[in-house]
């Protein structure tokens, strides 16, 4: 463990809460808007620190299985792009779509979990696939 408490996420949230509670109400106009954007960005970072590594590993594993190849996540994504350009994969390919949907949903859970398409897709998929651990 390289650091003491607070953890990176806890520290980030402390900064975010401070800006939101103490600084934001004192600003107006463009400055307020820019700080709101900054606060949102810290929210993105907090979610990424929490789940990013795990999402990246899952994406890499799915890519490996889909492509039948080994490599870093970046290498495999490049290979996937090449194969899409060469039409070895198309938009009619359910396995490809499934992988890309999972990747897009993971990204959205970090970038903007309030986005309507994300929220409605999440509600749909949990209705379609009842969780087995309940």
């Amino acid at each position: 463990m390289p650091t003491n408490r607070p953890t990176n996420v806890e520290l980030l949230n402390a900064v975010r809460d401070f800006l939101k509670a103490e600084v934001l109400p004192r600003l107006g106009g463009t400055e307020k808007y820019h700080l709101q954007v900054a606060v949102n960005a810290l929210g993105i970072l907090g979610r990424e620190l929490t789940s990013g590594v795990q999402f990246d590993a899952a994406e890499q594993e799915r890519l490996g299985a889909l492509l039948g190849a080994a490599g870093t996540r970046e290498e495999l994504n490049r290979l996937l792009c090449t194969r899409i350009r060469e039409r070895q994969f198309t938009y009619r390919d359910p396995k490809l779509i499934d992988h890309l949907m999972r990747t897009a949903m993971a990204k959205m859970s970090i970038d903007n979990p309030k986005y309507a398409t994300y929220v409605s897709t999440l509600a749909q998929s949990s209705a379609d696939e009842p969780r087995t651990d309940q």
Partner: protein
Amino acid sequence: MSEDLANNLASAFRRRFGDAVQIADLKSLSGGASAETWKFDVITSESRLPLILQRMAGAQQFEASLDRVLQSRVQSAAFEGGVPVAQVQFAFDDVDNLGNGFVMRRVEGETLGPRILKLDEFAAARAGMTRQCAEILVRIHALDTKSLPVLPVRGARDSLDSLSGIYRRFGEELPVFELALQWLEDHVPAQGGTTLVHGDFRLGNFIVGAEGIRAVLDWEMAHIGDPAEDFGWICVPSWRFGQLEHEVGGFGKLRDLISCYETAGGRAVDAQRVRFWTVLGCLKWGLICLFFAFQYLNGDVPAIERAVIGRRTSETELDLLKLMRGA
């Protein structure tokens, strides 16, 4: 800076209209990287006129857009053709020393999409807006091209090639965007009608009052092309502001927009053509988000919102996957 601007504006009015005028309440409305907007009143001995100044700022635009003089001429032609737009007063020339811009009447009202979709005061406006959009589009698409300045011609094929080129130049490898380009390649519609296309017809570019749309803004993407493009663009999920089930700007249904358009005298609209343009529009917005992010990353526009908007690219990836599946 705003004092110089006020002095130059006063001279520009005096040169054109002879009278001494006073410029009052000059205020910057937005500090966009590609355009500047100012509001002000011009006071003469008889009247006080509420006006807007719009001019280019330094930063590079995503796609080739009209310069403000050309834009003002398209906007004037639209005004003559019965489209609700702010009436152009005059475009600047070199003597004005006011940059590349123009002055138009100020139309009061709301432009923010979420407010228009949510607030009670716009309930009546929302109820009529699909029909109103249809009637406005009929007028835009019926404008005699002879009344317009020479505009770029951009059909489906040209737009797709342009987006594909922009994507490749970023050097990013995004599987969803590759797939969208593949889908679009397979769905390019045959050469459509060639009419004036607004090019940025969406919620956010309408000034709305309690009774409905008062003015259509932002004509700098106007071109000659496929009228279905304006239908596709207004249906891009990013402009629905959460109201997904209303594919037209979060307030209307596409089938109603099409039927009102045809009833109002517009030519038949093919929903498949519209779908092509919605997918293309969604990809385009995703690329604009990336473009903004790179403006920050390259040091061209050191503004935090440019950096952060890069993370909105993922919204269009999810929307593209849904759109390609026909959802």
